[in-house]
């Protein structure tokens, strides 16, 4: 399992476009947004979080686009199947690596931008935790979407799984309000962590079954 994680990390690190692209998109959106509106007319800090949430969704969407496609195209999935007989470990390791190498940096950048736009510096760890957990959920979800249509262009499957991201966005919105008003934050974090753990344990099973149907 550790070897698989180190292999997937090495592969992702070598694919500059896959990890740097989503980070740059996030920075671009977060920098461009305040520049594109007349700040004097609006209270930016009230809705800047919403922009971070949408950026998070978009970058998770882009980051997971080619998660399994390359391994399917070059035959690595078949080789993995001969060794492991399923794809549970592979899916789990890929999600872990993507969350750690892309999701966590995205959460970090998002947190920096949030306090740069009026959120109290003391809330930084809360926001970071919140965004990291959201990314864990979103990456699991979009990894599933990716596995659904790897033979017809992975983006199609990711798009089809987009409606499933709506409950996560609603949950994140509630959690953000709890940071802003300092009310019920621990409960929200506990809920998101619980859902995150369950999804992380179950989603690789579903992904494994989806990938198996593609190599049949």
């Amino acid at each position, binding site marked *: 399992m550790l*070897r698989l994680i180190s*292999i997937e990390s*090495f*592969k992702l690190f*070598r*694919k500059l476009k896959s990890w740097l692209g989503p980070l740059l998109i996030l920075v671009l959106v977060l920098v461009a947004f305040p520049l594109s509106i007349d700040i004097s007319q609006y209270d930016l800090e009230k809705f800047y979080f919403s922009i971070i949430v949408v950026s998070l969704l978009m970058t998770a969407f882009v980051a997971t686009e080619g998660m399994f496609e*390359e391994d399917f*195209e*070059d*035959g*690595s999935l*078949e*080789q993995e*199947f*001969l060794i492991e*007989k399923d794809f549970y470990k592979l899916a789990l390791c890929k999600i872990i690596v993507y969350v750690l190498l892309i999701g966590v940096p995205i959460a970090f950048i998002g947190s920096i931008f949030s306090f740069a736009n009026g959120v109290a510096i003391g809330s930084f760890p809360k926001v970071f935790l919140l965004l990291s957990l959201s990314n864990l959920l979103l990456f699991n979800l979009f990894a599933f979407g990716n596995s659904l249509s790897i033979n017809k262009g992975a983006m199609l499957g990711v798009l089809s799984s987009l409606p499933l991201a709506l409950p996560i966005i609603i949950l994140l919105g509630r959690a953000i309000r709890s940071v802003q008003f300092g009310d019920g934050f621990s409960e929200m974090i506990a809920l998101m962590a619980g859902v995150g753990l369950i999804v992380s344990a179950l989603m690789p099973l579903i992904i494994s079954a989806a990938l198996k149907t593609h*190599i*049949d």
Partner: protein
Amino acid sequence: MTLLSAQKISYSINDKKLFHGLSFNVQNGEALHVKGSNGSGKSTLLRILLGITPPSKGKIERSNPDLKISYLGHKNAIKNYLTPAQNLELLFNESELGIALKWLRELDLSSVQEELTSNLSFGQKKKLALIRVLAKPQELIVLDEPFVGLDQDASQILNNFLVNQLSNQVSLIFTSHIHPDVECKVLDLSNNSA
């Protein structure tokens, strides 16, 4: 001892039967050459034997459910954005890497081991992919058109390797339009569709 046994296996795609009622055994140290015209189902048969594709009918029995298999199909399973040396590092652990690098030199790839794999020729990529099988032979070797793209020297190296493995009781199943210099049973799929 029978390593793998196929019992009345059939496979159809969209009501077209590729093959039907195939039964055969592969013993330890035995080679099976699957022959047939293009589209006769050779690659599909290999994938069925590997357990990747389920047969439409019939079953495959293995002497050991955890049978260790080396496989090289049409897809090379190598990463174009890595160098050959990095590809080998992904495939092999530290103790196996030395043997893999030895094969890299043997197959005349050491001069390109630090170049991006995407810059290699078709034949060089095929040689690199073959190292997966050469450096880590298992109980059963399954190869789909292994000689395609190889130059004469590499073909000879592969041929010698296969002969050597068969003498070590490793079994071999392969498809090839080129008949290699190994003693083998032949399964011809050309006249098997109905």
